[in-house]
């Protein structure tokens, strides 16, 4: 519904007086307390909320992982029953991927993408808020299943027919389908929003090839989402219709082919893994140049390789199905296509290394995490290449060797990238520096924990320990000192070290909030536009929309080339630049005003969905809420009257506007 909308730029005033608002319900004018957050449409606040939600789910998923590791630490574990264990790994993966990784990338994208391209907000701020709340609803629905008869237990790729009504009779899978469907709509809206933002809202002078790499990677990711989410939507719809309304799509007795689900899932699922990794690639492509004091080596190549990873990523999905009986020709084609993906990814790795080559490397925590990504991801990527060799993969698929692969790319790659982003951008978002010393502990514990946890899984897998088993037995565990018992124990201990590492981050956050030192405006001598404003940024981001002349605009405003000495000479300081912007601030900046409708609509969608599980009356209620919210949304004035705007201040500049949302 959100796509066809009343047109017009929603510029509402600094202060909206209730009498002047149109629409069914008066729009919120409250600026304090919880309302400020619930009804906000400010991309920065939404970004922060994304971050908080994602972090919460990271801990949920992490605790689930710890339970898994406890169960597997020794043979015949009995911490969890078979049933609970199966739910545990299903929800661990679902939570980590859909409720932590994607939203956390969403947090960074929401916060920094507009800042990096010199915009005041995203293209559709209300839809942005809607995406966030839909995600929250989806997450709640997914996890509510724990308390309503058990969570989904079919594994995160939920292969049919095991996920069908006969084999998974509890409601777990229904909640799972529904939660993902809702979260999927959220992502789809979000991705359209961000693509339009990047295409349309760049500051003057910022051509596509002058965009920061982070923005580029986010752009590629959003395209992947726009084109892959509908595919999982189809799969989920088919499954839902089968489970709730008696359709036969995966009913083999009717002649159905279970491989249909696998294709649909992985057509989505493989692009999805690049959705997970590319934001982190983007983050470290900002961090590495900043702390090497050099621009990214081969910017166009990094951009192009990112785009081609995205494109080729759509043609390799069946490498998850090498053992599923595709037939040799298909297997061969997908095997070779998969190998091809290593090439553009290699380009990125090499360019990062070459960025550091000849640089002046400054080992902050952010930089350490970025370096960690480069090395750990390479290890994970190379094991990925060994999977792409199909005959060999038929030996390793569904063993811990695969689990090792994807945790190296996901944890060593994606999570390290996100942590690098936390340390790099924390001062920007909160105006305070995270403690570097705690950061160091955080980093080293995570490196050690991560390698202890997932390193041994290579050995376990290659020696034949299958994944998704709630117990493993001594009989199949080999002999000698380094038998499965040893390595499983190491992995389990490692996971707790990892958890302590994460705990250090949380401690760091708390400590910083309480007593952290105020961040200077440009603590890292950074390179891109988001630093050309105060920390934290004002609600309107920039006092004056910057005009861009360079890739790394901010850096080039600070430095001038000294070709004689083959170095850069500082000509201005970040602080000065920002003060100059403030002095030349635009008059009358109009920001979108807060709105009730996103959160109401999201709630309605959630209720509507529950109706699928709990019957028509609930569905009707949900539908009513959705309808009500939609009309409220559409009828909310899109353009405010001139008189709604706060009068210009005496000097003619209204740069301080009331922070409405």
């Amino acid at each position, binding site marked *: 519904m959100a796509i066809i909308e009343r047109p017009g730029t929603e510029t509402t005033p600094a202060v909206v007086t209730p009498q002047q608002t149109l629409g069914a319900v008066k729009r919120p004018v409250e600026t304090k307390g919880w309302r400020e957050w619930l009804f906000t449409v400010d991309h920065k606040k939404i970004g922060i909320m994304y971050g908080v939600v994602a972090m919460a789910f990271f801990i949920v998923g992490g605790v689930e992982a710890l339970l898994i590791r406890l169960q597997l630490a020794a043979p015949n574990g009995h911490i969890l029953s078979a049933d609970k264990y199966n739910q545990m790994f299903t929800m661990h993966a679902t939570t980590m991927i859909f409720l932590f990784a994607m939203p956390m990338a969403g947090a960074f994208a929401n916060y920094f993408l507009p800042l990096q391209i010199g915009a005041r907000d995203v293209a559709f701020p209300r839809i942005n808020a809607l995406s966030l709340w839909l995600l929250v609803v989806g997450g709640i629905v997914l996890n509510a299943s724990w308390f309503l008869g058990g969570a989904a237990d079919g594994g995160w790729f939920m292969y049919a027919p095991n996920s069908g009504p006969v084999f998974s009779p509890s409601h777990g899978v229904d909640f799972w389908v529904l939660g993902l469907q809702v979260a999927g709509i959220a992502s789809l809206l979000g991705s359209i929003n961000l693509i339009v933002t990047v*295409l349309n809202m760049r500051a003057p002078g910022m051509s596509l090839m002058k965009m920061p790499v982070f923005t580029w990677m986010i752009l590629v990711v959003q*395209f992947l989402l*726009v*084109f892959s989410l509908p*595919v999982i939507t189809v799969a989920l719809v088919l499954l839902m219709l089968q489970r709730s309304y008696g359709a036969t799509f995966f009913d083999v007795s009717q002649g159905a*082919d279970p*491989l249909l689900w696998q*294709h*649909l899932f992985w*057509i989505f699922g493989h692009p999805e893994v690049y959705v997970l990794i590319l934001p982190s690639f983007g983050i470290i492509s900002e961090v590495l140049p900043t702390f090497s004091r050099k621009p990214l080596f081969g910017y166009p190549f990094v951009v192009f390789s990112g785009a081609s990873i995205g494109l080729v990523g*759509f*043609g390799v999905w*069946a490498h998850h199905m090498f053992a599923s009986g*595709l*037939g040799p020709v*298909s297997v061969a084609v997908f095997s070779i296509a998969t190998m091809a993906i290593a090439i553009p990814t290699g380009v990125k790795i090499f360019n990062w290394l070459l960025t550091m080559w000849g640089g002046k490397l400054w080992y902050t925590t952010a930089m350490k995490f970025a370096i960690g990504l480069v090395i750990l991801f390479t290890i994970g990527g190379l094991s990925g290449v060994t999977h792409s060799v199909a005959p060999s993969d038929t030996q390793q698929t569904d063993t811990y060797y695969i689990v090792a692969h994807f945790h190296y790319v996901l944890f060593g790659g994606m999570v390290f990238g996100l942590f690098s982003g936390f340390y790099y951008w924390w001062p920007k978002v909160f105006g305070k520096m995270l403690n570097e010393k705690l950061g160091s502990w955080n980093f080293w514990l995570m490196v050690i924990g991560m390698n202890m946890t997932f390193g041994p899984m290579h050995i376990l897998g290659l020696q034949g320990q299958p994944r998704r088993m709630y117990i493993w037995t001594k009989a199949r565990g080999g002999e000698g000192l380094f038998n499965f018992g040893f390595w499983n124990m190491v992995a389990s201990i490692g996971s707790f070290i990892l958890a302590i590492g994460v705990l250090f981050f949380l401690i760091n956050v708390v400590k910083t909030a309480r007593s952290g030192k105020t961040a200077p405006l440009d603590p890292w001598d950074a390179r891109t536009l988001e630093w050309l404003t105060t920390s934290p940024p004002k609600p309107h981001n920039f006092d004056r929309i910057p005009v861009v002349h360079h890739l790394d605009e901010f850096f080039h405003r600070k430095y001038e080339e000294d070709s004689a000495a083959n170095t850069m000479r500082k000509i201005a300081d970040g602080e000065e630049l920002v003060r100059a912007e403030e002095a030349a601030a635009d008059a009358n900046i109009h920001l979108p005003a807060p709105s009730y409708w996103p959160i109401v609509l999201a709630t309605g969608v959630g209720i509507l969905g529950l109706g699928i599980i709990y019957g028509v009356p609930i569905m009707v209620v949900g539908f009513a809420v959705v309808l009500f919210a939609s009309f409220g949304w559409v009828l909310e004035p899109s353009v405010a009257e001139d008189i709604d705007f706060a009068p210009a201040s005496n000097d003619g500049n209204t740069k301080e506007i009331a922070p409405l949302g």
Partner: protein
Amino acid sequence: MNATAEHQEHGMSDASYIKIAIILAAITGLEVSTYYVDFGPLFMPALLTMMIVKFVMVVSYFMHLKFDSKIFSFLFYTGLGLALFVYCTALATFKFFVS
């Protein structure tokens, strides 16, 4: 913004829309006739060609894609192309096209 002027530039008048609609209707008639008249081996190719022609005409003229910014074409045809590629490949693995 002067929509009319911009519109005229595209050279699409209401009359030409009607012409296009007539062509579309005629093709539809032909399509339906394949159901009753035996076209022999030409049946499939003919039917698919007519389908594609109709599709492209609606997209190009009614949806203005032919005259609009290339960016729109890029967005739409990327989706369409990916859909074709991905689903035809998937169907191929089911040996859908050999029979």
